[in-house]
């Protein structure tokens, strides 16, 4: 075994030989990639939490960027503390959490800290809430503790906004809880009343139970049902009848009629009123939970640009300031591994910048003094000074965010269709109920039976089955999809997905893996392995994606890479290593030519190529390529078989995209597009009546993802891409995309069946009710039966998807082991 074959026991990254840190912990030698990881390992094993290493389930190695760096500003952190009776509270975000074990580890390690009273981390939002005793510990101690584990704690901004969302969710939950509790009581009373209706009941007991029923129903209707009542009232005032109005109408009629009957001694139907409210609240609750699950990354993406920057004052003083306070002309210092806080131009130094979140291209670009820098991009090699040119709220990221916002606001909710239906359905039913009442009054039956018949019409036409038809199908489908790693952000998305005609793909990271892999080695006078060994040796000191690709290939071939120091980096061009006996150069052809090495001219085939030379002698070259995802071909084939038009859009101007399009039989192809052009292309398609899905990742796709009818982001994409998209694939697997489209189509079929069923039920039952052959009790029962049918039909979706997935069950099981 060679040194380079080690993988860091803490962060799982392969260890570059010169960085290897080995140490004895608990009488066993362990290997790490840096001292930070060693420290984290010591803390974890010292606290007896080694289980973390056995149980974690990381989808990618490495620690959070900027972890292990201490130095949190105590004053800034103090401002975030909320003081309370039982200790102070600190809420913040933890970056780098990848699995349930990470949550567990951080909680345990915080609880072990003296003075921490309670530590809770939200699994979905990665938000930590720590209650602590200010006498014993400080916020910066808490932050340092987490940072030492290789995670990165971050102060939360936009706190107030999130708190409002939380309050709303809690209020909905309390409304539902109240409705459910009272409905359960009510069910007992109703059971007695129904039994009494058929078998006879003592009048006194009946009256008593009816009063109790009225008592529990009143808060259900007027407190729990308040969202519908106010919605219905608003729709009435706006003269735009919607489903809320229908619900309000059904609920209020049942309620007030029952109150009337309470006075006159007839049958009461409080249970109808309460059950409608409870069931519909349940639907809304589940929907909001699904929605929240799909947008768990919202906190994280807002943090794309750092919220603090180190400003250099004219007198040379360094000051940590809020990003929002930066002005054009300010000078900030950005270290390696940090993101640029605002747009600007490099004032001094040169470095390599990873703009992949902005452009989607994984290759870092070289930037020298005077070059423009885009906020949010990552500084890789050296510490530089940046002259700000745009205030933070005018930065590139902010603009993209605004584009996205506009695109989202433009989207009309699919709910409008249901509202259009109810716009005539509601008045029609009201008219029908009215004429039923009039007719029976004219036929000279008693007033009470005329009211009874009218109420039967209203109850039987009540939107229960109709209202359940869509939400239940969507609920089951989103739930099933989520288990398969497909997150639909809401039911309208499912419907839109089912109606797609065009699917557009981004190239890098979507159809390809997004990281360069060695595809060919051509060497002179030596074997490929020997050349690779030299390349790996010189590249071992850098963390450049190309270097990583070369090192990965060397590891795969089992080539030992000895540690190497003294390598000089020429950012964006190449590397130079001076040994006593020879000078080795590696890099672009031009870089070698500048050192008077003769590099053979070769037709550029658009792959990345690094050339090597030793003492002016050309040794050969290594080609790397961003490879297609292995499942791409099969997934595209499945989509083509379903008659979707596919299209490849890429920001990369080279011909690589064309080759990929040809290989995957994608007929349409556009290259060299900037984010806005991508969105425009989609707009154009939409104006031609096409329904377009965009599949991508990276910030440059964000406007397109939002502009498309349906945006689909792959996991591993940037947070903002995840946020603007409608479908999120939690595993980067294009096969899931085909599955998602398939499921959406099936869901639409089920929804149509449900609507048909619910409507025919109404069509059949309403005449019966109007003709007086259906007492309200039976009407309510019929309504319940139709609801059960609809729910049962929706549940078929779960089974259909399950049989669809048996092939993947095995791999899934392995994932969870």
């Amino acid at each position, binding site marked *: 075994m060679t040194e380079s074959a080690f993988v860091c026991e803490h962060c799982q990254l392969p260890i570059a030989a010169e960085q290897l840190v080995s140490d004895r912990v608990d009488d066993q030698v362990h290997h790490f990639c840096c001292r930070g990881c060693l420290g984290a390992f010591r803390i974890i094993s010292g606290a007896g939490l080694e289980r973390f290493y056995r149980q974690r389930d990381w989808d990618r190695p490495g620690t959070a960027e900027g972890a292990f760096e201490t130095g949190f500003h105590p004053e800034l952190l103090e401002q975030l503390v909320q003081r309370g009776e039982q200790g102070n509270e600190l809420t913040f975000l933890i970056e780098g959490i990848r699995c349930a074990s990470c949550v567990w580890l951080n909680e345990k390690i915080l609880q*072990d800290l003296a003075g921490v009273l309670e530590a809770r981390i939200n699994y979905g939002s990665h938000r930590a809430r720590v209650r602590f005793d200010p006498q014993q510990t400080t916020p910066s101690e808490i932050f340092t503790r987490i940072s030492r584990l290789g995670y990165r704690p971050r102060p939360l901004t936009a706190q107030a906004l999130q708190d409002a969302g939380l309050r709303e969710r809690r209020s909905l939950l309390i409304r539902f809880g109240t409705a459910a509790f009272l409905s359960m009581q009510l069910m007992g009373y109703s059971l007695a009343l129904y039994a009494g209706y058929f078998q006879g009941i003592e009048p006194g007991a009946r009256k008593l139970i009816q009063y109790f029923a009225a008592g529990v129903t009143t808060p259900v209707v007027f407190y729990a049902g308040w969202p519908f009542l106010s919605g219905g009232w608003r729709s009435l005032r706006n003269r735009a009848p919607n489903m809320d109005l229908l619900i309000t109408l059904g609920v209020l009629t049942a309620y007030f009629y029952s109150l009337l009957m309470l006075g006159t001694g007839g049958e009461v139907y409080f249970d109808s009123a309460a059950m409608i409210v409870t069931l519909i609240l349940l639907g809304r609750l589940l929907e909001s939970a699904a929605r929240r699950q799909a947008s768990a990354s919202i906190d994280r993406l807002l943090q794309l640009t750092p919220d603090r920057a180190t400003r250099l004052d004219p007198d040379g003083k360094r000051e940590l300031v809020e990003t929002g306070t930066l002005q054009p002309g300010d000078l900030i210092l950005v270290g390696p591994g940090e993101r640029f806080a605002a747009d600007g131009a490099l004032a001094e130094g040169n470095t390599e910048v990873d703009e992949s979140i902005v452009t989607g291209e994984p290759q870092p670009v070289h930037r020298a003094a005077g070059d423009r820098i885009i906020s949010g991009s990552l500084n890789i090699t050296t510490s530089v000074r940046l002259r700000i040119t745009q205030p933070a709220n005018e930065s590139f990221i902010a603009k993209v965010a605004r584009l996205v916002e506009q695109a989202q606001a433009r989207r009309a909710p699919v709910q409008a269709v249901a509202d259009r239906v109810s716009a005539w359905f509601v008045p029609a039913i009201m008219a029908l109920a009215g004429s039923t009442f009039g007719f029976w009054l004219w036929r000279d039956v008693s007033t009470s039976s005329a009211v009874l018949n009218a109420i039967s019409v209203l109850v039987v036409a009540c939107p229960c089955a109709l209202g359940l038809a869509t939400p239940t199908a969507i609920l089951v489908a989103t739930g099933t999809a989520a288990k398969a790693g497909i997150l639909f952000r809401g039911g309208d998305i499912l419907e839109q997905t089912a109606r797609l005609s065009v699917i557009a793909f981004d190239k890098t990271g979507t159809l390809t893996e997004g990281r360069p892999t060695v595809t060919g080695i051509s060497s002179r006078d030596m074997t490929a392995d020997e050349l690779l060994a030299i390349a790996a040796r010189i590249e071992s000191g850098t963390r450049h994606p190309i270097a990583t690709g070369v090192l990965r290939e060397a590891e795969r071939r089992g080539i030992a890479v000895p540690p190497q120091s003294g390598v000089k980096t020429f950012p964006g061009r190449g590397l130079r290593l001076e040994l006593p006996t020879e000078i080795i150069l590696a890099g672009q052809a031009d870089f070698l030519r500048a050192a008077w090495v003769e590099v053979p001219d070769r037709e550029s085939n658009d792959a990345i190529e690094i050339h090597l030379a030793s003492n002016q002698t050309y040794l050969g070259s290594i080609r790397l390529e961003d490879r297609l995802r292995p499942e791409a071909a099969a997934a595209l084939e499945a989509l083509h078989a379903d008659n979707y038009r596919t299209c490849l859009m890429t920001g990369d101007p080279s011909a690589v995209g064309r080759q990929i399009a040809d290989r995957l039989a994608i007929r349409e192809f556009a290259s060299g597009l900037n984010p806005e052009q991508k969105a425009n292309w989609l707009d154009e398609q939409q104006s031609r009546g096409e329904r377009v899905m965009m599949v991508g990742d990276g910030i440059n796709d964000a406007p397109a993802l939002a502009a498309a009818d349906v945006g689909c982001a792959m996991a591993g994409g940037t947070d903002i891409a995840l946020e603007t998209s409608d479908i999120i694939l939690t595993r980067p697997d294009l096969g899931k995309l085909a599955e998602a489209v398939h499921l959406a189509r099936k869901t639409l079929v089920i929804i149509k069946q449900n609507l048909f069923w619910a409507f025919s039920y109404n069509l059949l039952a309403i005449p019966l009710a109007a003709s007086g052959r259906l007492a309200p009790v039976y009407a309510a029962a019929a309504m319940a039966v139709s609801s059960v049918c609809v729910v049962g039909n929706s549940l078929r979706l779960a089974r259909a998807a399950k049989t669809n997935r048996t092939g993947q069950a095995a791999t899934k099981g392995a994932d969870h082991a």
Partner: protein
Amino acid sequence: MLDSILLLIMLSLFLGTGVWLFFIWAVKKGEFDDIEGPKYRMLDDDDETRNRPTDADGDAP
């Protein structure tokens, strides 16, 4: 007959109200804010860590 019905109804309402108040308290405390985590936490919590310090003195060597 009527008395016993009344008694039972009052009893069930009383018990139910207790549970309902408990539920509201739990919601307000944020018990339902994270509905994903507990299923994993449950698996993790069943064996306590080996040498976890009793409460104070947190820093491991």
